[in-house]
């Protein structure tokens, strides 16, 4: 575990530390902050009482991972630091999960920022005489969905980064891959409008939500296992 923390610490130190990095960091924060402000302002009390923050938070988590995760291995390869890292005593799992962990942690910090800003906005613009707070269920669902989405995209992103020569190649591939599911989903919604409304009604039931969460959890676990299986020092050098 301490090795994973060591890798995460190094990844954090390097995050946005390049020419123009601070500006990129501010720009990265800008969209989630605006989103949090707008959605919480427009939805009012529902922001804290109903699962309204789930979508913006999951979106922010995915975007944050897309920004960070292509760097993980393609960046090391591009900067010629990968081989030296692999020549250390660090185990495969420590390197892999240290890098993946930082991407997920970064995304969850941004989710926390969104939730905090949303809460402040809701309280300021929709003050009802007492402090508005998230319900425990709302907070749990929001964090769980965001985490599951974050891990999902991070795992896919690391698999792509492992096989990419450059960060640009990894970013472009990941962006393409991440865009495919929403596009397909959108097309299906357009084709099966009525059935989709029925499905949404079903999803409103707690048992359906649980099934969705469990399905996502299973996909995440399978992806992480596949990632672990694919990660071999010798294959990385051959790429």
């Amino acid at each position, binding site marked *: 575990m301490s090795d994973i923390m060591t890798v995460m610490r190094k990844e954090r130190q390097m995050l946005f530390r390049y020419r123009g990095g601070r500006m990129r960091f501010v720009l990265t924060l800008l969209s989630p902050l605006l989103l949090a402000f707008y959605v919480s302002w427009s939805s009012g009390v529902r922001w804290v009482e109903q699962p309204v923050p789930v979508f913006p938070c999951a979106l922010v988590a995915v975007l944050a991972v897309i920004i960070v995760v292509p760097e993980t291995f393609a960046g090391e390869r591009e900067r010629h*630091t990968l081989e*030296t890292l692999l*020549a*250390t*005593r660090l185990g495969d799992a420590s390197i892999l999960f240290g890098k993946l962990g930082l991407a997920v942690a970064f995304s969850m910090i941004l989710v926390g920022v969104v939730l905090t800003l949303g809460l402040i906005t809701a309280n300021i613009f929709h003050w009802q005489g007492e402090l508005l707070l998230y319900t425990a269920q709302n907070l749990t669902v929001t964090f769980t969905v965001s985490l599951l989405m974050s891990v999902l995209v991070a795992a896919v992103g690391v698999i792509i980064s492992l096989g990419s020569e450059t960060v640009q190649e990894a970013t472009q591939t990941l962006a393409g891959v991440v865009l495919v599911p929403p596009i397909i989903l959108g097309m299906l919604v357009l084709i099966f409008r009525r059935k989709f409304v029925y499905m949404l009604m079903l999803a409103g039931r707690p048992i359906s939500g649980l099934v969705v969460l469990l399905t996502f959890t299973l996909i995440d676990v399978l992806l992480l296992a596949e990632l672990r299986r694919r990660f071999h020092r*010798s294959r990385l*050098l*051959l790429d």
Partner: protein
Amino acid sequence: MRPPALRTEALTRDFGAIRAIDSLSLDVPQGTLFGLLGPNGAGKTTTIRLLLALLQPTSGRAEVLGLDTQKEGQQIRTRVGALLEHTGLYEQLTAEENLDFFGRVWKLPHAARRARIEELLREIGLWDRRAEPVGKWSKGMRQRLALARALLHHPTLLLLDEPTAGLDVVAASQVREALTRMVRHDGLTVVLTTHNMLEAERLCDTLGVIRRGRLVAVDQPDRLRANHAAPCLEIRGGNFSTSVQEAIRLREEVTSIDVSNGTLTIEFDRPIDSSPIVRLLIEHGASVQEVLKRTPSLEDVFLALTEDEE
């Protein structure tokens, strides 16, 4: 008797149809400095990767510090320091942050880590610049820092891929002195690859010449010179006529003759006594002003060994 620091037995590595390392068998005793010489693409870097268990052999085996590279890669990497083809430094991080990261990787306790970082940075003359991102540094400074990083955890074996590449004369000399000191006084074993023949000759106890993945010679530098390169006579004078050259050429130990700018150069296939040659020249009417018996350099040996393979 101590086991060798490094032992390979018929080590072979293929990349598709290309055989990068071909039946490499090698023993490097502990506490010695071993140099691996070879042209580009000879397999030096692949050998180092195999020794660090970053690649698995196609066949054969390798042991590093008594550990099997196929089964005990992580233990090997724990005890070995490596400076590879690239410095492997994180350019956005400062020198201190780079060493701190690798110190944490090797689990040096906080106080020991701080002390070791200061000791090494002072030793390589970069302590005052420890807070600068290394991306702004010259190649030589980065190379020195990378060497410091390789030594951070007090390894018992150092694997160095071109350690003085890109260094100026003074810095390269400092690195060589430091390596010699560590081997002689601290009992460290060093395996390095180099293109620099002078460096190889001055620094290494034993040299291996590798070509197309095959080890074509292993010996001490002076014995390599004696056994693998032709001695040569350079005779300054005049009247090196065709008949003189023919007479010399008839001697069986002579391999080639060249006349240019009043100098007759004769190469031999074995150690020779120069007096019969000089006598023969004078008998055939040549004038001899100066005779220089040239000892073959390591470069001559290297060229001879690698050209033989063509």
